[in-house]
């Protein structure tokens, strides 16, 4: 940067332009082609090899529980996450510390352990307190409760980050107009926060879908449990787990492309 007539400058300029020209090739989603190729290969195997086809037939009914658990847990964890996330940014120290305690507790324990703990300790204790017979709560329900409580903590952190990303001036402008803290939160901060957290929520939906496979811990017959049951009777591990991988990967691929699309649209808007 010594002057406009310095010889090096034009070269520097060219160097800046060049990668931009090449970027169209570089930015090609080669990984996407690779994943699609792997999926296509798996699909061909499943379609042509009889034993793989049979495994597919046996496992696929589990998809209704996998999808059902994911959807219900996601809705519940958004509700929990919204409450805990707002609690996390509350000015009331009791509420704020309650929220932090919940979030840090969840984040400090492995998901597998939390699921076992909630399903076999917390829910039985809860049903004793409420006077419900313990076996009246089905394993599916326990698993959904566990996933919702776990993901509620993750989503709370997403909402917290979203609220904190809204410039401080927005709250100040709202308050200067005489709006209360709650009114400003509802009408000004949250609508902006939700826009910015949508991609992160999408990513957590994908994680939740994958973690729904832990239903197998409780013997809930989702995709994973169906595959494991099938290997137990048939000993066809190759077939069962290739089919299982194929199913999860195709679902998560579609979802992550949707999230990327969403991100692009929000980025433009």
């Amino acid at each position, binding site marked *: 940067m010594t002057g406009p007539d310095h010889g090096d400058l034009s070269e520097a300029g060219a160097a800046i332009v060049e990668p931009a020209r090449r970027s169209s090739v570089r930015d090609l989603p080669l990984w996407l082609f690779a994943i699609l190729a792997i999926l296509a290969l798996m699909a061909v195997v499943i379609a042509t090899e009889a034993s793989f086809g049979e495994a597919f037939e046996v496992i696929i009914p589990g998809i209704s529980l996998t999808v059902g658990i994911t959807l219900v847990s996601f809705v519940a964890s958004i509700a929990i996450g919204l409450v805990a996330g707002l609690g996390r940014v509350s000015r009331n120290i009791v509420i704020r510390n309650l929220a932090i305690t919940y979030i840090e507790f969840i984040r400090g324990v492995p998901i597998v352990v939390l699921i076992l703990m909630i399903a076999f300790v917390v829910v039985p204790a809860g049903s004793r307190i409420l006077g419900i017979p313990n076996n009246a709560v089905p394993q599916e329900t326990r698993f959904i409760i566990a996933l919702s409580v776990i993901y509620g903590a993750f989503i709370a952190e997403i909402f917290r980050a979203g609220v904190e990303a809204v410039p401080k001036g*927005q709250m100040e*402008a*709202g308050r200067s*107009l005489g*709006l209360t803290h709650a*009114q400003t939160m509802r009408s000004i901060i949250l609508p902006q926060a939700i826009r910015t957290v949508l991609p992160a929520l999408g990513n957590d939906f994908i994680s939740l879908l994958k973690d729904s496979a832990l239903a197998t811990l409780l013997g809930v017959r989702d995709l994973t449990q169906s595959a494991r049951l099938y290997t137990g009777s048939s000993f066809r591990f190759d077939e069962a787990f290739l089919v299982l991988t194929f199913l999860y990967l195709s679902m998560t691929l579609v979802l992550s492309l949707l999230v990327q699309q969403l991100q692009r649209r929000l980025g433009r808007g």
Partner: protein
Amino acid sequence: MAESAARPEIGPDDRIVVDHLWKSFGTIQAVRDVSLRIRTGTVTVIVGPSGSGKSTVLRCMNHLEVPTSGAVYIDGVHLGDRRTNINLIRREVGMVFQQFNLFPHLSVLDNITLALRKVRGRSKTEAEAIAMAQLQRVGIPEQARKRPGQLSGGQQQRVAIARSLAMNPRVMLFDEPTSALDPEMIKEVLDVMQELAASGMTMVVVSHEMGFARQVGSHMVMMDQGRIVEEGAAEDVFARPQHPRTKEFFSKIL
């Protein structure tokens, strides 16, 4: 601390009284013992170097910052009193920020009608009529349906002024309203402010626009290192600055 101090004398003409205001942020003393009277219908211009505490004093006037000690009274109401509902006070005190702080997810019209409806309890039609009248006043009624992001800086600041005016405030606070604007847009905002002053609005303006201060200002306050070092009628301070810091400041800025 604030409660123990005696209540200052507050006349019927005193819209805002700042009484021995101190404000610290951690170890930083932002405001040191500032006392100030803003009389109804006057335009007070606060000047001073960066970090001298101008914004902090202004922000204490609607309790965006809570004083460390001392007190602010608006129309005789002590803002720091536990019985004071600050939301009721703030709707009477308009505030215009350097960064506009418009709500980007709402249209220009909705930016203005939001508080009218939620705070003043106006119906949608009433609120929109008031909003349109204020947009007319600041000269951009045709932008009502746009989002703030589609407007120029000067237009955005005029919307922010219209948003405050729509609440029909008794006093307007401006914190460097033109500092974030490109030079060619400064005038359109100052013109609106000048018109507002001419209409009799009580205004407190932190600004380095000396032309504006000279033409429109009735009172001038010079701050340095958290203190008021000089204040008086605007023309006097301009014509005969007394404090060396004021002289130095003017020589730099003019």
